[in-house]
């Protein structure tokens, strides 16, 4: 049963992500991404990580996708994107090479086999409880730092998308730059210097 579920999820996730990466339509790509995320949370549930699965659903499908859809509307990207993708061979060759490399690394014997677990889930606790226990003791500091990080992200988002950025104080719009003649001179002096 788990074997079937794994292969089912794995195939579907792979296909959906391929759609995300290859599709020319933003909407398709985004929908495929969202669906892939949902299915990944399925994998998490299979791996006894119920809490993580829930977080995945809430954060990705809830928050991230909502953000992306807003962005999509803002950028008016609801149509096919024209991309000059250039040399597809290089890209797929590189992707393939790195995939092979990772697979080789992962299928190599793991020397940590039989090492005692450092943070086993507490006895008799459900997964969210066990996670909570570790998260709020050992990992309280990263948790707080993550909170700071989210604050940073919020401030950044507000500033960058804010109206105040529309008008820059760092440049005066009528930029006075040197005319092309001086640039030519520059090149000439450079050549002379090269001698």
């Amino acid at each position: 049963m788990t074997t079937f579920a794994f292969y089912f999820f794995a195939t579907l996730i792979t296909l959906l992500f391929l759609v995300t990466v290859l599709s020319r339509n933003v909407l398709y790509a985004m929908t495929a991404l969202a669906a892939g995320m949902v299915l990944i949370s399925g994998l998490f549930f299979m791996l006894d990580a119920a809490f993580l699965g829930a977080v995945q659903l809430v954060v990705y499908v809830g928050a991230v996708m909502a953000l992306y859809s807003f962005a999509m509307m803002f950028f008016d990207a609801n149509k096919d994107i024209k991309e000059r993708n250039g040399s597809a061979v290089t890209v797929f060759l590189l992707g393939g090479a790195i995939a092979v490399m990772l697979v080789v690394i992962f299928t190599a014997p793991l020397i940590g086999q039989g090492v005692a677990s450092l943070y086993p889930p507490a006895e008799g606790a459900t997964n969210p409880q066990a996670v909570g226990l570790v998260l709020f003791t050992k990992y309280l500091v990263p948790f707080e730092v993550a909170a700071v990080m989210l604050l940073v992200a919020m401030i950044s988002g507000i500033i960058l998308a804010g109206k105040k950025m529309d008008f820059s104080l760092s440049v005066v719009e009528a930029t006075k730059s040197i005319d092309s003649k001086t640039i030519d001179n520059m090149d000439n002096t450079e050549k002379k210097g090269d001698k």
Partner: protein
Amino acid sequence: MENLLYIALFSPLVGSLFAALFAMSPKNIITGIVTSALLLISFIASAILFEHVMTVGAVHVTMMDWIMAGDMLIPFGFLVDQISVTMMVVVTLVSTVVHIYSIGYMDHDKSFNRFFSYLSAFVFSMMVLVMSDNFLGLFIGWEGVGVCSWLLIGFWYHKEDVSRDVNPSISPSWAANEAFIMNRIADLGMLIGIFILYWNTGSLQYDVVFAALPNLSDGILVAAAIALFVGAMGKSAQFPLHTWLTDAMEGPTPVSALIHAATMVTAGVFLIIRANPLYAMEAVEWVSYFIASLGTFVAIFAASMALVCRDLKRIIAFSTLSQLGYMFAAAGLGAYWIALFHLAAHAFFKALLFLGAGNVMHAMNDELDIFKMGGLKKVMRWTYLYMGLASLALSGIGIAGVGLAGYFSKDAIIETAFNEQNYILWIILIVTAGMTAFYSFRQVFLTFHGSKRYADTEIHPHDMYKYVLIAMSPLAILAVIAGFFKGWFEEFVTVLLPAYKMSEETHHIAWILGLVVIAFAVGGIVLAYIKYNKGLKRNEELENSLVYRLLSNQYYIPQLYDKIFSKPYAAFSRFSWLTLDQKIVDATVDGIGNMIKTGGDNTRKIQTGNLSDYLRWMARGVVLLVIVAFISHQLSQGAN
């Protein structure tokens, strides 16, 4: 004594800083006077120290512990012993004269104050170089004189670049950069040498390093000796790093006199003398021999180029090169004290020669072509006297124990070559001596004798200011009498340097050897006199007409000699100057630079500005890292 040492060392620095205060303001004679006075003080302090070293012994002070971290201890101290005090006296004396001279020479230059600031800064660096008691201090002084030399060669940086045909050194800033870059290449060798010594002996102090030398393996000794000599080659402009020296003549003439004749260029010789315990080791015998051979080669190589040169300052520059070759020959043959003696004597008469040339330039509105001069002896009596004396000293004129400075010092080197039974070097050095005499007097005669070839121009030459001429007199006196101190000097420095005595047989026939040299020198002078005393007809193609005139005026030299020897020789001189020098050596240096540049241009193309390309490069980098990791793994397996 310690105070005197600091006075000698720091007065030039004070002078330099003082002049620097006025660097941007218009000419102020005070800067010249103050810096000269401070140098005079420095000279007096050095002289007293000299006396002290002679009567009491060396002075060694440690100013401070410079770096002290973990096992690295580099105290920064100064050592005034027989070698350094000789250098100090020579440097400060010549500098004082050159400073006073410059007050007159730079009279009309708008950057008068800046010039004195640089010049005094140079003297300070030179003092650090000679007085340091360790290799690091020496290196700092070494770099310091390099920077000052760069600033001074490029002093008239505003001059435009011109093509090589018009001016072989293109422009002052070009020449300055060439000198600096060539020296940096050599400095690299020196730095490596210092590192080798430090890492094998654990110290940079001369005494500690030299004491540890016998424990080192042969390979390390040879490597250190070679690396240090590479440094010396750059500073002393030995083949193939010699091209910068003649181009450095773009600088003001006092600079040429002080830096590119008397002091800085001899730093390489000084280094070899300083490191004599290293070069005297048995293991590095062949390196020393190589040094001697290279020195001899440079001596004749430079002299041959001087034969056909028309540029007043370049002739003297070639002559400097040639004399440096002599010094290296002596040092390489183990006669360190003779090298040091020649260094000192040469400093006096070569500085005098340059300053005289400066007078001529000043009189001739910066004209340097000796073919356009002539007959100046009437209007420039003193300069004529000085330059004549200096040329006599350079040619080594004298007989039976009486003679000018060069007679004693240069002959001693030639005698050394004979004593070492190295007859090839001996013959080359003797021939060079003859050539030296010839080109020196060719220059003197073309400049001062004959008809006034400048008559149709607007130039009205006149001699230099009186005080300048008086200031030059100490050098003139020393050029005449320095040689008489030879025996006494030998006694003084051989306390520290290995004594070098001629063998019995050499001693017996020394007078014959001396006579041979004199014969060559006199022969050279006479030849020059005959060819050039009556002036120069300049209406024909020069090279050929010279040969032609020789043929028609043949006094001693048979026709055969001209056809077989003189013409090919002139051709060879031209060839060595034009092809060997400019095409091969310069082209190699340029070529390396261009290669790096082209490499940069090509690599730069991957920086396209396109984010996608950057990301792809990152991915390529991952693959690259995997490959490199695999190779590294194989390497580490192979090593085990």
